[in-house]
């Protein structure tokens, strides 16, 4: 099948701005299937914007993004997305099961209850993230770490081929973070994973490539992410742009 041989994500000549405020410039990246990529960069650098462009939640001012060779809208069924959970109402009256089942929307009937198969799939993904015994608990009553895992379960319930995660480790302590990365590493055996993260330390141990976003975007294999590059990412904007301009590192910039 032609679609399966396409890269998981292909972004070409993509620009994005809010009004006259340029957020992303000239982005070109190719993420092969089975990759585990972390998107890093300073706050306001455009990490979440890049993720939302891949999802089709934002439209590029110029250029294109393709998921498995299709537009983001066409590929939506193959994408499991985990948003930053801080946007959601923590007191919402729903159980863990209710939230995870939302991942099954758009798979069958357009109205009516979820099918037995939907419930089996969701029970299975809750098991994978270790929340099976919490399925009847209230969303308001579970911890921050459990919520993060619940949102991963919801994304997995979509039966995706790629996971897009926006800061899955935000608000987690070190132990929970370790557990989460272990889970992601297991999932990477069968899924492509792209996640936004601030945390370079952990990232370099488990991810295969790093995308650096600060208006300009560069992709590196993790092995090449050195202290110098980290400095450049979080250093002054001028230096970052010069670095991009000179193309002085081995970027997978296609």
């Amino acid at each position, binding site marked *: 099948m032609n679609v399966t041989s396409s890269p998981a994500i292909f972004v070409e000549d993509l620009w994005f701005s809010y009004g006259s405020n340029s957020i992303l410039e000239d982005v070109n990246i190719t993420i092969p299937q089975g990759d585990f990529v972390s998107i890093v960069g300073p706050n306001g650098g455009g990490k979440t914007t890049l993720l939302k462009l891949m*999802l089709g*939640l934002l439209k590029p001012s110029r250029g294109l993004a393709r998921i498995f060779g299709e537009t983001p809208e066409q590929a*939506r*069924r193959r*994408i499991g*997305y985990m*948003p930053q959970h801080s*946007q*959601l*109402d923590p*007191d*919402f*009256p*729903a*159980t863990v099961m*209710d*939230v995870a*089942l*939302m*991942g099954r*929307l*758009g798979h069958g009937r*357009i*109205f*009516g*209850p*979820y099918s037995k198969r939907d419930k089996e799939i969701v029970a299975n993904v809750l098991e994978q993230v270790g929340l099976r015994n919490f399925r009847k608990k*209230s969303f*308001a*009553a579970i911890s921050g770490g459990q919520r993060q895992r619940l949102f991963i379960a*919801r994304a997995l319930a*979509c039966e995706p081929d790629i996971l897009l995660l926006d800061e899955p480790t935000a608000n987690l302590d070190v132990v929970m973070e370790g557990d989460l990365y272990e889970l992601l590493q297991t999932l990477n055996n069968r899924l492509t994973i792209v996640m936004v993260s601030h945390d370079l330390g952990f990232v370099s141990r488990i991810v295969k490539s790093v995308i650096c976003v600060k208006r300009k975007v560069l992709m590196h294999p993790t092995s090449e992410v050195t202290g110098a590059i980290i400095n450049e990412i979080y250093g002054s904007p001028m230096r970052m742009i010069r670095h991009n301009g000179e193309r002085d590192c081995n970027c997978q910039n296609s």
Partner: protein
Amino acid sequence: MSEFLNDLGHYVFLQNALLTGILASVACGIIGTYVVVRRISYIADGIAHTVLGGMGAALYLNRVYHWHGLIPLHGALVAALVAAVIIGLVSLRAKQREDTAISALWAIGMAAGIIFISRTPGYNEDLMGYLFGNILMVSTGDLWMLAGLDVLIVVAGLMFYNQFLAVCFDQEFAGLRGLRVEVFYLFLLGLAALTVVLLSTVVGIVMVVAMLTLPIGIAALFCRSLWGMMVISTILCAIFTTSGLAVSYGPDYPAGATTIILAGAAYLGALSVKWAISRS
């Protein structure tokens, strides 16, 4: 209270009032729950007050231009649905100015209603009636109308429960799953508008606002799931309307206002209990 129970067996108007309270509770419990969890009670209030403009315009056209087919209910329906669509689109497209748009519609709607009513010849005792309603003057036709509204809301609420839940909880994710979130959101606002209109012609605008928020506010303190909240708030709503009627009947207090005071007191009481539990 005993006078109420005694007369209940004899007077149809009292039986109708009781039934109205219970039918209204079903609509308020379900729609109110969606409105509260989606945090749009302010939108429901805005729609409710815009309704006055439509009622006034319909009354004016009826009396001055002798459009006899037109009754205040028709004007209210048009005003509410137009307000729902305008507010809905503003809140979906231009988030930062949502409250301004709602306040503007709210104020303009009420002002227009008052001007129309002041220019309408005849005795216009109705204005207070539209604001506070009179549950003791409900006709059998009104009851059928409410029953119809309940059927519509229960059927839509059951059929699209999962979709409404997803749209209220996480609109962005629901959209990514291929749900037409704007359609569902406007549908929900439309149902809220319909509830507000039909109930405001029966029990008054202020009572609708109270019934769409107070019982649900109490249920929200203790419920874990959306459907649980709907059931509990429907029951609470029925208790408040019934007890409001019973308490106000003997001393001849306004029934709507009594119901609101009772529901408000219960809400404050429930908040205190919850606060005390969380501190202990």
